């Protein structure tokens, strides 16, 4: 490596191979300086301009673009119609009121829909996570011939989007009498490929020794699953659970297809209905109130548990 044009001061430039003990000294000094500076380094005189113009300024722009629409939504949900149609809108409502939320409740059975969403999300997620845990355990620990073939079949299922199976599932569920029912919303989504896949990877990484003591005690698979494999995998199971909750809560296509009456709709479908009945000028406030109700619960869950959710949703990217 040529150092002749580097910024290192003259007296520290040494030809290659001479006095190798000099180099660690330099990095040690560097490290010390870095340790002393820590994050304050970003604000040192030489870095300050860089930190502001290529750091905070773009971050600020990105945050404006991400946060402003959501702030606009919350603010508008408290604005009366006159402040919505005005030509000089303000960021904050001048005369805040919760009338829009009352209007949502008047137009659609909001509480019922909210309850439906919670019911579908909780029941669907609990069953899906349970099935994912048991399936993943079976695929890793129970020795039967051909289970890799079964796993391959589950992998292919992971790839099939709900749009592809929508029409046949609509016919199946309708013939079972599940149209416009909550179980009809839940049932077709219960088979889980994503959770199975993720937990299988996790179980495969568990050390085999962990199970040896239990095996000597004569523990069967059921005990090994519920007393060892599941308890040590709580973070992974939580990740699967949270990703499932997010997906179930936001799910739109299937509930839209299978429900007909407002009393059986989940929130996204209910909002779709609200949007189709509220189409005149001043009604954006009502629609924003509706959007708040479906968006804010997920924002809260995400803010509290983002570590698990981000890890689950970006699975496969980091090998």
């Amino acid at each position: 490596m040529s150092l002749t044009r580097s910024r290192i001061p003259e007296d520290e430039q040494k030809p290659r191979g001479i006095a190798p003990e000099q180099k660690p000294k330099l990095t040690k000094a560097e490290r010390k300086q870095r340790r002393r500076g820590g994050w304050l380094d970003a604000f040192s005189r030489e870095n300050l301009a860089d930190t502001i113009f290529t750091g905070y300024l773009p971050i600020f722009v990105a945050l404006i673009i991400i946060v402003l629409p959501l702030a606009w939504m919350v603010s508008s949900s408290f604005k009366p119609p006159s402040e919505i149609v005005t030509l000089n809108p303000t960021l904050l409502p001048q005369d805040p009121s919760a009338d829009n939320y009352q209007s949502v409740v008047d137009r659609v059975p909001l509480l019922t829909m909210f309850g439906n969403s919670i019911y579908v999300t909780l029941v669907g997620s609990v069953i899906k996570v349970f099935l994912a845990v048991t399936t993943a355990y079976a695929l890793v620990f129970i020795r039967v011939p051909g289970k890799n073939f079964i796993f391959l079949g589950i992998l292919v299922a992971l790839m099939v989007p709900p749009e592809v199976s929508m029409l046949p599932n609509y016919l199946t569920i309708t013939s079972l009498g599940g149209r416009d029912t909550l179980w009809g919303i839940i049932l077709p989504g219960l088979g889980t490929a994503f959770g199975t896949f993720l937990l299988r990877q996790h179980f495969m990484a568990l050390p085999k020794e962990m199970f040896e003591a239990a095996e000597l005690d004569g523990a069967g698979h059921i005990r090994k699953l519920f007393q060892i494999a599941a308890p040590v995998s709580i973070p992974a199971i939580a990740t699967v659970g949270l990703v499932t909750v997010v997906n179930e809560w936001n799910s739109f296509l299937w509930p839209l297809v299978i429900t007909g009456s407002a009393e059986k709709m989940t929130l996204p479908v209910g909002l779709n209905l609200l949007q189709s009945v509220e189409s005149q000028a001043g009604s954006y406030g009502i629609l924003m109130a509706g959007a708040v109700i479906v968006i804010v619960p997920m924002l809260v869950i995400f803010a509290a548990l983002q570590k698990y959710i981000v890890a689950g949703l970006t699975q496969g990217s980091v090998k």
Partner: protein
Amino acid sequence: MSSATQTELDQTRKRAHRRRLSKDWSLFLLFAGPNILLILAFIYYPLFSNMYYSTLDWRLGSSSATQIGLENYADFFTSDSGLEVWRVTGIFTAGAVLGSMVLGLLIALVLNKKIPGKTVARTAVFSPYVLSGVGVAMVWNFIFDPTRGGLAHILDFFGFDSPEWYLNEDWSLTMVIIVYVWKNLGYCAVVFLAGLQSIPKDLIEAATIDRAGPVRRFFSITLPLLTPTVFFLLVTNILFSMTNAFDILRTMTPTGHGTNTIIFEIYLQSFGAYQRAGYSAAIAVVLFFTLFFITAVQLRFVERKVHYS
């Protein structure tokens, strides 16, 4: 030991093995059976029944259907409306994938700097990805409103008229791409950030010592080392943008004029105004094989990458 007892022993062993195997099988089915059954009934059965429906000329809800062979497929690949779906899907996918990857990479590069507060920024940027597409689309409907929307006010401030986002089909498509990118770029940023952080710091430092500028460093070191991440994101984004955008499309443009990508068309044809269930099933089959092809290509390449590293 006589040969008679040997065969007897063999048989007992075989019987024991078979008994264990059948016990293992019943346990396996107890554990994995329900999930496998559900996947068969609600993912695999639809896949194959779609292939049957796709050969029918059939209105949803009607009891009569006529066999028309592969006419639905021919229709989808040759008719003007079918080709329009391919055009819209192509533009939407290209715009959505490029937009979220380029912006996501830019944000990741900034978040990769050693500055305080970047964890909070990362969380905020990722957050739209977990929000309801319907809710998000309703918010953007308000923002894009040509007379009362926030964007119209901003454009007005700079002396521009708002485009007719909802009346002009090209603007409609642009609009839904923007919203999709907004919702998706945090995902790309977080994955890129993980990729950036796996690049050895000394390589960048060495280049800095060699007086390579930031642009040069990015194109000769960072980007080449980031290719596995770029490729992963390219494939997942193509798959996601082809399958995940339904809620945004349906909420912002309910009739699908100018925004009927392949997934939206499947819905519109069976449950929308057209009620052509057979045609819709044919499109679903085509979509499945398209996704299958993309995934297969990805698996081949990913394998190579693993061997490479």
